[in-house]
Structures are given as C-alpha cells and as structure tokens.
C-alpha cells in the first residue's frame, strides 16, 4: 500500500470511529435506494439525488461509494477496480473502507464478487446474473460539453432531442476521418435515453449491451444516479457509413497472450522498456495461472 493510502486509512479510521454499517446513515441510504429503483425503472435516465459527504475526496468516486454503501449487505463479496486493477491506491482505499465499515468479504476475482465497484473498466471476464456493477462517474451528462446549461440538457433528454450529439460525432469524422471519441463514448439505452458510460473506454461499450448483471452509476459531485437493468439494449451511437468500432490492438498481452482484451502500455524498467499488458489484472493473472503465456514469458 502506498503512503497516501496508508494516511487515508488512518484518517478514515478516525473519521468513522462511530460509524453506521457501510458508514452512510440510514436516511441517506433510503434516499439513494429510492433513486436506484427509479433509475432501474427508467433505464439511462439520470435521477437527481442529494449527494452526501463521504470521508474521501470527490475525485475518488464518492457517487459510486454511496451507491455501494446503500446496497451492500453482510452476504456480499466486494471487488473494487480502478482502470482494470485491484491494487491501485484508489481501489485499495475503497476496498478497505468497505471491509472496515461493513466487514464484508472482499475479492479480486471477478467471478467471486457479488458487487464490483469500478472507475473505468468493465471486467474482461463476462459478468453473470445476480452481480451488480457499480460505476464511479465523474461527469454523468453526455450532453454537457455540447450544452453547459442543465435546464437545456434536461429538456433535450425530455424531448429525446439528441441531434446535437450526432453532429458532434460527425464533426469527429469530418476532422479525423473516423469517430475519434475513445472514452465516455455515448450510448442509447433501450432506444430512448442517450447516456454517458462514464470514463470507460469504448472498448467496453459492447459489454453493456444485454449484460446479465445490473449496472448502477453514481456521480457524487454532480448528484446523479442512473442504471441499466440486466438484459437491456445498449447501443453505441454511430452512423450507417461510419459504424461503431471498438479499439483494436495490434498485438496480444505480453504476459498472458490474450488478444481480445483492452491493453495498457506500461513501462517495465529504467531503460524505458515498454510492453502492452491486460488492463484487467485479475483476468491476466487468471490466464497466466491457467498456463497461458505471452511473448514476454516465452
């Protein structure tokens, strides 16, 4: 654990000396629970909620933390990832926060988790029925960069007026010859609401469609909760002559040889040696344990 994370945990331990289960008070949980049910009933619609102070900075995903705190129970097993990794400061801190305030079991194995909180990635291992994926969302409004006024974006959602979003994507095409947006790539949920999948790479967008797991999104600073029920249609916006495509990588993972995953470029040593490895560390480790190897190991 880093020094930052250690300091965080010490401060947090003092702050939550007399904490409720999962830290959050029951009235806040009830309010968030009601918002979650509305979000499920209106897939892709951003439900306003009164975000609470949590013992961590907003940048750390307090929206997702509040959602997890409102749903988690003693029978849950929690996994927390930042990018695809379980061992970053942010992921460790949030995992420890819940371990301490709830006593629930934690795991790094996607298949063992009942709740997975994430900042960027959807795990490579397919999710299953009964699992809940909780996203920490910094900017929930897909129209924000096109229209800064909340009253206007609300009206655009109300009328399903999403032409401006297509114009933006088409400007990409005009400028770059293709849609250059690679993160937070907008989707349309069940043919109605245009939704921001948060800072996930567009590589993960297809995993949201007809996903067996429930997907919940919490934006703390912007005070919005939204949801995608299991088995719901999620379509990435595109054009007939420029269909949606995920990022392609021109090589497999250097550690496990996977060629159907999202890769991160990492620097290996002081000489600046670079290689491409799975962003999803649990997936990569599982594959290596199962005997798969990349060129790095051969």
């Amino acid at each position: 654990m880093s020094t930052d994370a250690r300091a965080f945990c010490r401060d947090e331990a003092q702050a939550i000396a007399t904490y409720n289960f999962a830290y959050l008070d029951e009235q806040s949980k009830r309010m968030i629970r009601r918002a979650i049910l509305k979000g499920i009933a209106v897939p892709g619609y951003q439900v306003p909620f009164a975000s609470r102070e949590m013992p961590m900075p907003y940048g750390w995903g307090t929206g997702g933390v509040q959602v997890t705190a409102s749903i988690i129970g003693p029978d849950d097993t929690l996994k927390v990832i930042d990018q695809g990794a379980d061992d970053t400061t942010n992921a460790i801190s949030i995992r420890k926060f819940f371990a301490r305030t709830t006593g629930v079991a934690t795991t790094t194995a996607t298949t063992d988790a009942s709740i997975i909180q994430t900042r960027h990635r959807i795990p490579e291992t397919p999710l299953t029925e009964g699992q809940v994926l909780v996203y920490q969302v910094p900017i929930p409004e897909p129209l924000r960069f096109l229209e800064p006024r909340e009253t206007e974006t609300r009206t655009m959602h109300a009328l399903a007026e999403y032409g401006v979003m297509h114009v933006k994507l088409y400007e990409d095409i005009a400028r770059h010859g293709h849609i250059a947006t690679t993160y937070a790539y907008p989707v349309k949920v069940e043919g109605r609401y245009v939704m921001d999948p948060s800072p996930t790479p567009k590589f993960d967008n297809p995993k949201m469609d007809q996903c067996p797991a429930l997907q919940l999104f919490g934006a703390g600073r912007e005070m919005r909760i939204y949801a995608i029920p299991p088995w719901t249609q999620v379509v990435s916006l595109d054009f007939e002559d420029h269909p949606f495509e995920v990022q392609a990588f021109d090589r497999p993972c250097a550690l496990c040889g996977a060629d159907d995953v999202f890769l991160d470029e990492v620097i290996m040593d002081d000489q600046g040696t670079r290689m491409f490895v799975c962003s999803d560390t649990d997936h990569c480790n599982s594959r290596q344990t199962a005997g798969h190897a990349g060129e790095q190991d051969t």
Partner: protein
Amino acid sequence: MQAEPDANGYLEGGFADPVMGGQTIFRAIMQAMAEPGTIRPISQALRAPAPMTRTMAAIAATLCDADTPVWLDDALAAAPQVIKWLGFHTGAPMTPHTDQAAFALVSDSTAMPQLAAFAQGSDSYPDRSSTVILAVESLASGDAFDLSGPGIRTSARLRLTPAPADFIAQWTANGAQFPCGVDLILAAPDAVACLPRTTRIRQGEG
C-alpha cells in the same frame, strides 16, 4: 432488553434490526425491480396492524420516510393503528391525494384506483412518480401474465391473486407514457415481485 407490552399496538413491530432489515428488504426489491417477474422471498419477523400486511409494512419501513408522502387505500386509511404504525416507524406524512403520493399502499387490489390517478412524473422528471405497493394473496397462483422488456432475457411469467381489474389495459396505458408512469411493487405474504414501467405484459397462455 425485554420490551414492555405494547398497549398502543404500533410501537412494536418494526425491524428487529433496522439497518440489516432495511438492507435485506431493499436488495430483494432492487433485484425484483431489475428482473421483473422474479419472485424474491421476504422473511422479516416484523408485525403490522391489519389490514396492512407484514410484507407491505417491511417495504414501507425500508423505503418511506419524512420525504415521501404516502397515500393509503380506504381500508388502510380506515385503520388508525396503520396510520400510527407508519408515522412511528417511517415518519412519512400521509396524503389524501393519489397524485401527490411518492408511495401508494393498496391493501385491496380489486379496489385499486386507476393507475393513471397516481403521480406520473413529467418528461423532464419522470422519477417524480408514485410507486404503488400492492398487497396480493399470492404470486404463485392466479391470473398469468407474460412479461417482456428490460431485465427480462426472453420472457417471464407472473401470476397474481387477485389481479387488479382491467389490469392489462391499465398497465399498457401506463407503459405508453414512458418515461412517465408508475412502478409497481407486489407484496405477497412472504415474497415480492416488481413491475417497473418498462415491462410489457400480455395475457399468459397455457
């Protein structure tokens, strides 16, 4: 600590453990709302004055509070102990107006008001709609409905005893207003099922 006998009949009867009780019930409701038609068992040793059922009381104790006006059907509204129980265990204000209810408690499904009478939300704020908590005798027998929509992989079958009058027509009209419309929580004696406004229903065959 042994509780004093409850002469008023409403001070007791909440969750033995409000934190865990609320979490357990909420997860059952959340999963039922996420996967319409699935039946989620509820077992809470919670007591409620008639004609409010235990399941209905558990749902109200989980979701209702001072921020959620509650509407009661005639049978519930005629029972002072029910109003006292809800006041004591949830703090929720009662409203006589169906269209101002955050939650509507319906103990007699055959006498349920038209769904259109409840708060429907607006195109800008479809979340400002009523959630109807409807007591039913059984989710295991009775009229069969075939469900489709978000949360349902291919199809699902829901049974209701008794079903509200003209239910398919009412529910179809409710769904036609999407994103507005009410959501339904069905409270059986030992289980819940949900119909969010996105679920399409038709008469079950066979």
